[in-house]
């Protein structure tokens, strides 16, 4: 179809473009500009050049936040995808009971992050939480109480596990939908050719699931980068900043530490990192075999 005027495509794109410019491009531009100022929202801003970046890089603070965020995302994405796929394979069976199991697992995804965080705080409590007690039992008699959320080595892992628990139901449903759309004839043909369960999964199911896996991976990655509620409720970035992820660090700088310039500098670096990851992801997926996709 050819447009009647050269402005028609722009007219069609205009609503999206306006929103994109107003809520994405302009704010990022403003953040980039603000990152060169010292400003606390209330007193006049002062130009400080690259001081905000130097301060963040100089202390290694930014690097730590970036590594923490990447580590958290790596656990969340791999954990969610693996657990979601495993559960999808397990519950891909007919019957009312399986429907109940599927609904139960998915329900965690529907519950708010705040409720999930509060629930897990209670379960992880070293003194009285069910998970805290289980960890203690696993460590053997006489082991001291371990406050997982108060331990810098474990707090981030604990947050990632909570996120995986919440998101796995979502991944399961998406994988399940794709699993159920795979023609049975393909699997039957492979079975007639002598393929066992694992080769059928490896060479028939997995390739057909790849586009879905890409979708689940991307959406989970985006969600993991946006992690805020779980940090805010469970650890407030502690202990010893061990769970300070990008979005929480931005919030803390701007609202708690009164530093708009620093927060803007973190935002710009965060944006650059996301851009790099998105570019990498796009490159990887574009290089894949179009038949498989």
């Amino acid at each position, binding site marked *: 179809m050819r447009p009647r005027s050269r402005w028609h495509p722009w007219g069609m794109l205009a609503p999206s473009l306006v929103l994109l410019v107003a809520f994405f491009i302009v704010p990022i531009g403003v953040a980039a500009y603000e990152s060169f100022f010292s400003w606390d929202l209330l*007193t006049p801003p*002062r130009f400080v050049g690259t001081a905000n970046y130097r*301060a963040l890089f100089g202390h290694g603070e930014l690097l730590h936040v970036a590594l923490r965020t990447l580590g958290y995302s790596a656990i969340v994405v791999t954990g969610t995808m693996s657990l979601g796929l495993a559960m999808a394979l397990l519950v891909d069976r007919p019957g009312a009971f399986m429907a109940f199991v599927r609904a139960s697992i998915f329900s965690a995804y529907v519950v708010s992050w705040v409720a999930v965080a509060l629930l897990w705080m209670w379960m992880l409590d070293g003194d009285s939480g069910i998970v805290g007690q289980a960890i203690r039992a696993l460590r053997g008699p006489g082991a001291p*109480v371990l406050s997982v959320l108060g331990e810098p080595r474990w707090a981030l892992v604990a947050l990632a596990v909570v996120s995986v628990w919440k998101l796995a139901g979502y991944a399961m449903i998406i994988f399940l939908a794709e699993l159920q759309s795979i023609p049975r004839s393909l699997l039957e043909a492979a079975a007639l050719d002598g393929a066992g369960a694992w080769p059928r999964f490896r060479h028939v199911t997995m390739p057909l699931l790849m586009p879905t896996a890409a979708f689940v991976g991307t959406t989970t990655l985006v969600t993991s980068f946006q992690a805020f509620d779980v940090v805010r409720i469970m650890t407030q970035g502690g202990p010893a900043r061990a769970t300070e992820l990008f979005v929480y660090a931005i919030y803390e700088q701007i609202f708690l530490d*009164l*530093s708009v310039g620093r927060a803007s500098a973190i935002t710009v670096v965060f944006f650059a990192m996301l851009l790099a990851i998105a570019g990498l992801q796009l490159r990887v997926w574009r290089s894949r075999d179009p038949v498989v996709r």
Partner: protein
Amino acid sequence: MIATRRDVIRALGAFALAGAGCRRERPAYRDGRLVVTFWYAFGDVVRKVLLELVARYNASQDRVLVDAVHQGDYFEALAKLRAALAAGTAPTLSHVVCEVLPYLSRAGVLEPLDGYDGAGDIPFVRALDQRGAFAGADGEPRVGVPFNRSTPIVFANANMLADERVAPPRTWDDLVEVAHRLTKRSSSGDVRWGFGVPISWWYWAAMVGQGGGRLVEADGRVSLGGASGEEAIRFWQRLVQVERVMRPPPGRDYQAWQSNSESFLRGGVAMMWSTTAYVRYLEDAARFPVVAAPLPRRVRASVPTGGTMFVVIRGAPAEEKRAAWDFVRWMCEDEQTIAWSTRTGYMPVTRTAVRRLEADGWYRNHPNDRVAYDQLADVDPWPWAPDLFRVERDIVEPRLEDAVLTGRDAHALMDEARDEARRPA
């Protein structure tokens, strides 16, 4: 160009925050009464007491209606207040932690209250008032009125003290000794900690003073207590990692405070440092007698003040500011001051209220409240430094936790903190 861009940000902020992108020029009325919006930051019992007092004020006259709106904890409320100030949608009245008062005052967003009717006549307890709670604030206009004020204090399980035949510690050395006696480890791995304290700026500031140090020197240089600041960190490190008599820090901000109190009430901690504001809550909730004691000294006794002060927002319409002041003044009358302090545990902020409490035998019947009040003699004022809050939240607080949990060298850590404090925000 810059002004236009900032206007856009402010307008967007106002839209996002309040659903209305304009600053109020005219006072708000409801049912013919002038509305004073009051943002507060309390939960549980304190919130209940405050709302009862607000309802009592609203019922006591028919001109002003105070509309109290809950805004989370102190720091959440402050974050919202700052955003609302920038967006021009701030309430008329709020209350803020003491340490942020110099910063907000310098920013020019708080109403100077000296000229308001009767402002100079309220007989505030000096240590709790703006001019006594801050050093170097005598020449500053009054922008804060003491509201819920407190100091750090020791709470101990009296039964456990009696079982071990020990008294609350009077010095840091005593503290180590007593905490050892009170710490019990069972064969199943359960530990009853002898001592607990949230790893927080407030308690660290107390220890800096006890070591004879100051956060900011007379020439305005941020020294963070010098050697005393480092000694305070080393003392915590020793209690947690070497002596193993102090409960490892359970989290940040008020989560740590709450966790500490819960553990104390459960019998998991025998003795803790907490706030005088918890005296009523702990006495009511504990299934054992709670005894309060002053914080121990190192070279001298020292405590900072805590809690918040009422602030009236400068940008509010004049009628609302006058009405807000009327409510604040009403809250400072003896009857309300006594109701507030006796029901919550916060300090009575006026001398006349204290005299009435003494005459009525309140302190005789509540010796823990007496301990808290007497400790006001040891108050070290905060420096009137606009950067104080940034130094607290951004520079010192995260490092304290880091030092205690990871055992980082206190001297290197505080050097780094001092460097950062000298750098502009």
